[in-house]
């Protein structure tokens, strides 16, 4: 995709970060499986440098939407403009078990420089000494970090993640959140992160979308400082609001 000239967003003024060129533009996106409608008429725009979190209950169609944006599913209706090659991080790290970590990171790259950049990125995610390891010997968190390195080495205009931290323990997850924010600040892709963890959404997002029965039922710009969010009143308010939107009573106030 050619880089689009910046078009002003209709609503949602982007917070502390300047809006980059548009990374995703979808309008009227619908998807049905065997006549059963899963996504209905979805409009979506994500800019480079913008961190969008997609929340939704199980079965609301989050993964379906992500697969469409990842160009893994072409059988949708509506209009869609995405980069030729968005990077994707899946819930399972999806490292090829028969390739060493570094060769997983460079998978699909043909330039001579790839190995060097991969080594750099692995160092950045704290895996410098595991570059030659087999994926089966990595811990869950290490594997996800390797997958993140694989996604970022392509310097994507768009980074799509489907519950990338779903399988990690709480501690590792916090460290992964920090790492992800740092890396996204540096590489500034447009990000769409799918999760059903409300805290994760409020901690990371510039913007939060809630998907309910295949429709975007809420589109919120998060106007909170990048660091130390958890201790603000807005955090709690936003959290409660999102839980209500998802149909869960927030009982631990």
């Amino acid at each position, binding site marked *: 995709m050619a880089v689009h000239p910046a078009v002003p967003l209709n609503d949602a003024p982007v917070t502390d970060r300047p809006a980059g060129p548009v990374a995703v533009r979808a309008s009227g996106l619908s998807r049905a499986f065997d006549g059963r409608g899963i996504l209905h008429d979805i409009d979506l725009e994500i800019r480079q440098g913008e961190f969008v979190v997609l929340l939704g209950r199980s079965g609301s169609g989050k993964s379906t939407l992500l697969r469409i944006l990842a160009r*893994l599913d072409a059988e949708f209706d509506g209009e869609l403009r995405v980069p030729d090659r968005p990077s994707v991080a899946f819930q399972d790290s999806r490292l*090829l078990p028969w390739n060493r970590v570094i060769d997983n990171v460079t*998978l699909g790259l043909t330039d001579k420089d790839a190995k060097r950049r991969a080594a750099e990125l692995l160092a950045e995610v704290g895996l410098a000494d595991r570059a030659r390891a087999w994926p089966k010997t990595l811990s869950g968190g290490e594997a996800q970090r390797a997958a993140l390195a694989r996604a970022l080495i392509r310097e994507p205009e768009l980074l799509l993640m489907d519950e990338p931290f779903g399988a990690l323990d709480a501690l590792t997850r916090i460290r992964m959140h920090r790492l992800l924010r740092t890396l996204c600040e540096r590489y500034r892709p447009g990000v769409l992160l799918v999760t059903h963890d409300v805290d994760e959404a409020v901690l990371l997002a510039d913007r939060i979308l809630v998907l309910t029965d295949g429709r975007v039922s809420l589109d919120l710009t998060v106007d909170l400082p990048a660091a130390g969010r958890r201790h603000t009143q807005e955090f709690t308010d936003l959290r409660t609001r999102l839980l209500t939107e998802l149909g869960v009573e927030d009982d631990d106030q």
Partner: protein
Amino acid sequence: MLVALWFVATSAGWVDARTLASPAAVWDAAQRLLETGQLQDNLLVSLQRAMTGLAIGVTVGVVLALVSGLTRVGEFLLDANLQMLRSMPILALVPLAIVWFGIGEEVKILLVSLAVMFPIYLNTHAAVRGVDSRFVDLASTVGLGRIALVRRVILPGALPGFFTGLRFSVAIAWLVLVVSEQINASSGIGYLMTQARNIGQTDVIMVGLVVYALLGLISDTLVRLLERKALTWQSTLQSR
């Protein structure tokens, strides 16, 4: 266990030496055969046949498995036919093959190849088909083309299945070779045994059996070693 029983049974005179030679007699026979060079010569011939048949059968099996595993046309044309033929006992073909092709060298190699091809085909085909579709998704998101997909994802993913097939194949190769050598050959270990049978030399027959057992054992070990080497990425899990 079995060897011990054999030893006791023959040396205690429970079994007639003409029915079952004692280990000592077999040892003598083996030395006799080695001195005359009969054992080496026939072993070499058998080994050559097995290797040639194995090489051809494995190659053909892998190629067929890839064609039918990766292309729709191939699947349609090949798979149903091969799946149907697989239940056919190859050994039953031996007499027919002799009638058709005579007793030349090619027949034995052909039979071995054919027998070897099936396990290779079936296991490799299933493995190619069974490559996790999530990896195929991944390949497409990192922009691997069709050839790179086969080389980086499908072939390595199917390798464990291929090795399962290879171990079956090696065992079957010897089996088919013995039988076809016993029925129609003028050289090879199977021939040596048939000759011995005709003149009632059970010790020589036993030598043949031992040689076959050793060949089977050695070749299986070799395949396992090869497998371990090729699948290092997998062994890390097993060795824990």
